[in-house]
C-alpha cells in the first residue's frame, strides 16, 4: 500500500485568510485536534513563515516564539513544522530560536528559481540534526527542467525532501503530472506537492501528484488559506482512503478537526470567489488577495485589473508593495507593455 506523508499548514497558510490574526487559543485548539487525528506534521506561524511579520506582508498578532510554544504544548505526537523564507528570516534572529523551541521539521522555501538562497538555512538545520525539506514556491513560473535543476540544488544542500507549491493555484492536473514526474526522476529524496484551489483543481492536482510519484502532500482544514484556499485536508484524506493510499490519519478525527477549524478559526470558509479565479488565471500569488481588495477599494479601482497587471509584471510572493505602485499607475493610466 502506497504511503503518503501528510503535512498540514492550516495554522500557517490559514493565517493569510485572517490577515495573520490567529490567536493563541485558536492555535491550541486546532493543534490538539490535528494531533488527535494523527496528522504527521503540523505547520504553524505567520502566513509567509518565520520572521515574516511585517508591514509588507502583514503583522502577525502572535510572535513566532508564542506560536511555537503554544503549538508545541498541544502536539504530543505530531511533529511541529515551520516555513522559512531566506530574505525574510535569518539564522541568528529567527531560526536558531525556533530550533531551540522544539521545532521538528523546517521547510526552507524560495521562489522557484532561487534555490541557492536556501543553502545556508538548509545546511544549518541539517547540521543540527533536525528534519529539513526544501520548498519551491510559485512553481508554475518555471519550466519543468528549471524546477528539476533547482530541486537538485536543494537536495545537494542537504534537503531530505523537496515540495513544489502551486502558490497561485494556476496548475491543471497535466501540469502537475509533468512536473512531479521530472522531479521524481531527478531526485533521490521524496517529492511533495502543495496545492491552492483557485481553479477548483487542488484535490485533482494532489491526486495527479501522487500518481506521478509524489509522497508528501499538503492540505489544510476546510482548505483554510488565502483567497480560494488550499487543498482541503479532510477531503484529501477521504480521497486517499478511497484510492487505497495509507496516510495514517483517522478519517473521523480529521473530519472533527475540520469542524473545529471551521468553528474556531475562520470567519468565512474559503470559497472560489471571482477574484480567486482571476488570481489563478493571472498566475499571481493567492496571498495577495486581501491586499489587492483593500488597495482597490482605497484607489477606487477594479481589483481584477490590479491582478492582471501584477501578472503581466510577473510579481513574485513577497512583492506586496508592488500592489500600491500598480494601483497608482492604473490610476494614471499606465500599463506594462
Amino acid at each position, binding site marked *: 500500500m502506497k504511503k503518503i506523508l501528510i503535512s498540514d499548514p492550516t495554522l500557517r497558510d490559514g493565517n493569510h485568510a485572517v490577515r495573520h490574526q490567529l490567536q493563541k487559543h485558536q492555535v491550541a485548539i486546532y493543534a490538539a485536534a490535528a494531533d488527535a487525528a494523527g496528522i504527521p506534521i503540523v505547520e504553524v506561524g505567520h502566513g509567509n513563515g518565520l520572521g515574516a511579520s511585517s508591514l509588507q506582508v502583514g503583522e502577525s498578532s502572535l510572535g513566532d516564539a508564542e506560536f511555537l510554544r503554544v503549538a508545541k504544548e498541544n502536539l504530543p505526537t505530531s511533529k511541529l513544522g515551520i516555513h522559512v523564507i531566506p*530574505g525574510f528570516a535569518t539564522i541568528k*534572529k529567527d531560526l536558531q530560536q525556533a530550533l531551540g523551541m522544539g521545532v521538528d521539521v523546517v521547510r526552507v522555501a524560495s521562489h522557484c528559481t532561487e534555490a541557492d538562497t536556501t543553502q*545556508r538555512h538548509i545546511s544549518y538545520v541539517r547540521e543540527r540534526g533536525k528534519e529539513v525539506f526544501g520548498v519551491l514556491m510559485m512553481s508554475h513560473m518555471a519550466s519543468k527542467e528549471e524546477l528539476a535543476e533547482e530541486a537538485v540544488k536543494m537536495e545537494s544542500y542537504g534537503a531530505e525532501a523537496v515540495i513544489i507549491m502551486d502558490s497561485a493555484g494556476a496548475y491543471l492536473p497535466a501540469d502537475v503530472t509533468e512536473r512531479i514526474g521530472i522531479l521524481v526522476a531527478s531526485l533521490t529524496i521524496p517529492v511533495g506537492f502543495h496545492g491552492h484551489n483557485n481553479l477548483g483543481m487542488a484535490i485533482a492536482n494532489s491526486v495527479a501528484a501522487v500518481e506521478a510519484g509524489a509522497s508528501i502532500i499538503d492540505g489544510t482544514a476546510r482548505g483554510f488559506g488565502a483567497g480560494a484556499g488550499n487543498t482541503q485536508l479532510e477531503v484529501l484524506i477521504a480521497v486517499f482512503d478511497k484510492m487505497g493510499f495509507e496516510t495514517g490519519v483517522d478519517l473521523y478525527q480529521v473530519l472533527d478537526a475540520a469542524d473545529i477549524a471551521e468553528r474556531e478559526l475562520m470567519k468565512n470558509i474559503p470559497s472560489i470567489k471571482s477574484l480567486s479565479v482571476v488570481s489563478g488565471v493571472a498566475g499571481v500569488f493567492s496571498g495577495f488577495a486581501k491586499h489587492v481588495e483593500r488597495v482597490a477599494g*482605497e484607489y477606487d479601482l477594479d481589483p481584477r485589473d490590479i491582478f492582471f497587471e501584477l501578472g503581466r509584471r510577473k*510579481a513574485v510572493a513577497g512583492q506586496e*508593495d508592488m500592489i*500600491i*505602485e500598480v494601483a497608482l499607475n492604473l490610476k494614471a493610466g499606465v500599463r506594462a507593455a
Partner: protein
Amino acid sequence: MGKMKVAILGSGNIGTDLLIKIMRSRYLECGLFIGRNLSSPGMTKANMLGVRISDRSIDAIADDPDICDLVFDATSARDHHRHWPVLESLGKVVIDMTPAQVGAMCVPAINLNESLSHQNINMVTCGGQASIPMAHLIGQHHEEVEYIEVVSSIASRSAGPATRINLDEYIETTEKGIRAFSGCREAKAILILNPAQPCVDMQTTIFAKVAHPDIEGLRRTVNEMVKRIQHYVPDYQLIVPPVLEDGRIVITVKVQGLGDYLPRFAGNLDIINCAAIAAAEAYAKEMLKNAGFGTQGERYEENIDKRSYLA
C-alpha cells in the same frame, strides 16, 4: 592637477564596475586591480583596459605600498576582516564594499563630509544605500519613529553567488544602517529576488510606523533628498511619493544603473558603487587640496558638486 591613486581588491562584478567608473574620474586613477585568478572575466577586462593587475591579493599592496593611497575592498566580509589590519598599518584609507561592519557607515547623501575623518568606511548594503536616505528623512520629520521596514526587490540575475549566500548578513547590516541613520526603535529589512525576464529594475519600498505621520512635511523635502542622491546616482527615481496607506507611511524608489560593467537593471549593484566613488572622490579632493593642488583654486571649487565620473 594630480589624481589620487587607488587599488581595487576583488575582481568580481563590483570590483570591475568600480574600475570602469574610476577610469572616468577626474580625481581617481587605478594603480592596481587585484584578484586571485588572472583569467577571471574581471581581470581580463582590466588587462584589456591597460590597467596593472595582480593575482596576489592583499600581498600585492603589502609588498608595494606606494601603489595606492586608497583601497576599495570588494571581496567578502570574511576577507575584509583579514585585509583591514594590514591596510590600517600601511595607513591606507579603505572603502569597504562588504557587509563586514568594521568601518563607519557612509551614505553620501547624509554623511559624506563626516565620513572623511575615518580611515575605514563601510558602504552598508545596496538596499541600505537606496533606503537609508528616505529612512533618515522620516527620522528628521518625526520625533519618535517606532518602526521602519525596507523591502528591496532585485532582478535575480543581478544577485551573484556572494549575495545569495550572504542574505542574512545583508539583512543584519541593512537593519543596523536604518536604525543608525533614522533613530527608529526597530528596523526590518526584507530582500526579494525576482527572476522575471526582461529583468526588473531594483525597487525599494520604505514603510514606517509613527504616531503622527507628517506626510506634507515629507512631500516638501523628499525631492531635495532625491536630488542629493541623484548627484551620484543619476537614475535614482521616486516612484511612489510619501503616501499614507493603511496607517503606514509608504515611499517607493527605483534605481537604474549607469550600465558600465553591469546591466542597467542592476541598480542595486550600481548604487553602492556610485556611493563608493562619491566617497573616494571626496577623499581625493581633500588629499589633493592638502597637497597644495587646492591653490589652483577656484576652478576646483566650482566643480565640487559635479561628480566627474558622470561626465
